[in-house]
């Protein structure tokens, strides 16, 4: 059983390797454009709400704690506690998505979505090409959007574990799916740990 758990966990880590490279392409684009259009990136990031971003970071860290504790409960056969912790993890995940939705709405109504309707006042006055700010926002929406999509999938996976766990599928001899969903969840937290400073904290002059 242990051999099988290690095998499936190794498989999950390999999948996370692909996720690292998947997000990695976006980080590569970010790195290059930030170096090239630094002022535009500063201007773009000033429209970010640092407090909402920081709250979301804290929310994800708490969700990682409850997730890790939930996996631990599966290891020591405390089924009820496991379910509770996993449900709290889900709630944290939904809270993250809710806050993100608020931010997205704000950006959308301010015409900060790239495309023909993009508007950014005061750019030319500050000597910044507004087209370059669009690139910042392209990366913002693409990176946080992809991250949010992974969060949604993560919430779904945790729900699946909760249901299966409630039916008594897991025990100290068989808890690999719980551990593997946990790995996925922590990975999604990891991506945000980098997204937050890169998108929100570019310069001292940030909005809030």
């Amino acid at each position, binding site marked *: 059983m242990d051999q099988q758990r290690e*095998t499936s966990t190794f*498989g999950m880590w390999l999948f996370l390797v692909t996720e690292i490279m998947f997000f990695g392409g976006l980080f590569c684009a970010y790195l290059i454009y930030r170096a090239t259009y630094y002022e535009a990136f500063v201007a773009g990031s000033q429209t970010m709400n640092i407090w909402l971003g920081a709250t979301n970071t804290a929310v994800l860290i708490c969700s990682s704690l409850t997730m890790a504790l939930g996996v631990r409960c599966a290891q020591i056969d405390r089924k009820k506690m496991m379910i509770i912790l996993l449900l709290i993890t889900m709630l944290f995940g939904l809270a993250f998505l809710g806050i993100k939705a608020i931010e997205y709405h704000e950006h959308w109504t301010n015409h900060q979505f790239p495309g023909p309707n993009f508007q950014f006042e005061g750019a030319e006055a500050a000597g910044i090409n507004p087209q370059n700010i669009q690139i910042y926002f392209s*990366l913002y929406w693409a990176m946080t959007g992809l991250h949010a999509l992974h969060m949604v999938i993560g919430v779904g996976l945790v729900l699946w574990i909760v249901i299966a766990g409630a039916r008594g599928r897991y025990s100290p001899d068989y808890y690999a799916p719980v551990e593997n969903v946990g790995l996925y969840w922590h990975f999604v937290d990891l991506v945000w740990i980098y997204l937050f400073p890169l998108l929100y904290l570019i310069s001292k002059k940030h909005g809030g």
Partner: protein
Amino acid sequence: MATAVQTVERENYLNAGYGLKSWLLTVDHKRIAILYLISITAMFFVGGFFAMLIRLELLTPAGDLVSSDTYNKLFTMHGITMVFFFLIPSVPAVLGNFVIPLMVGAKDLAFPRLNLLSWYLYMIGATFALVSMISGGIDTGWTFYTPFSTTYSHTNVVGTALGIFIVGFSSIFTGLNFIVTIHRMRAPGLTWTRLPLFCWSNYAASLIMVLGTPVIAITLLLVALERLFHIGVFNPALGGDPLLFQHLFWFYSHPAVYIMILPGMGVISEIVTCFSRKRVFGYEFVALASIAIAVLGFLVWAHHMFVAGISVYAALVFSLLSYLVAIPSAVKVFNWTATLYKGSIRYNTPMLYAFGFIGLFTVGGLTGVFLASLAIDVHVTDTYFVVAHFHYVMVGGMVMAYMAGLHFWWPKITGRMYPEGWAKLSALLVFVGFNLTFFPQFVLGYMGMPRRYHAYPPEFQVLNVLSTAGASVLAVGYVLPMIYFVWSLRYGKLAGPNPWNAVGLEWMTPSPPPTHNFDETPVVTWEAYDYEHQPEEEVAVGH
């Protein structure tokens, strides 16, 4: 030719359950390999159909068969079909899926259901791509360069990109499965240094699949987002850099060519040893060369961008690295050749294809080294020289290796021998047809004929006609095996467990194997390619 119909009575993976559902819901790696065999063969002929139209157009200097827009679609769809739906999956998904669990002494791969999912993802991706091709086509080149693909092309870029995105995950999951299987499911006694080189090669290719494919996935996703929602990171009007697309695209697409060739090289290692009745020369070097190719392959991608506008300093770095990546491939060619020396050589069909591979891959590989030189590349980039180079390694190399492997393991897969006479004829037709098709293209490219053009100056016509003639011969060489392989399913001579008298765990099960592969988990006490201790026997030949 004897036509008495013989049947295999014993229960095996083919007759363990009948009906569509037993095949479409199978988790048996052998059945999944057959499913892949059928779909990949179909896509090969789709790609071949586009090639035929291209070669027909190029018979005459004027662009008179199709319009230039249509021609753009033809070479694009030929490239996409062949690269993503044939070359990348073929050896791993067909031969690897079937043989690797047998070679390591396991019942199946590590994640059988994931394996089935891989095949469904392949089918869904292929459907997206085919529908996009039929309903308007795509004309960006298989390389999807921006801003043409993101802004100016009026064809089904999003649908095709989505198809490639999906089939990319098929590839990722296959690679993941192989890595875990080879690490954790080897039979007792089967240490890494006793592992057949086919496993080493597929392992190395799987590393590339897992590390590289996600990058093209995100890149194509960005192209689709740019077309749909104007999220424009590659849009020059916004200050975006089209070269960033090329960097991200080629970060995968160069290592992708090693995904294609490494499993093929693995096949050649198996065949050269079996048909010279010798241990491979320098086993450790060949094994490590596979890993070296996989790692070094990630360091060279910008050699596709030498004239695109990258800095000349970066170009120098990538040029040097591109020279280095040739070294492990050369090591393999030397070692196969040394294996042949003083070997007891049999000229069965798999061996004929292997000889073809070694010669043609060497030509293709050497011309790759020419292209790595900045000074030469400036002149021949985007000409037929490049086209000839990659067809030598892909078709002269990879496809020959695939044919070699199909013939080698056909008796194990089906329990039948193919007809040796027809097979040898096909191999000869492929070799002659291939060289007639592609050698003139080296000359054409060096003389300056650009690629992706449907019209050309009249002085290039003779060589183009030769090339098209060769393509017709090549086509016959590929159609014949289709016919005789199918024929052999019913009328082929029954093959025993080991018709080639080869060394390897896969030859120690019946042909075809039972669903569970081995009645008892084998224990391995011998080194790889232990032909010294294999009793000398008449190698079986089908008729």
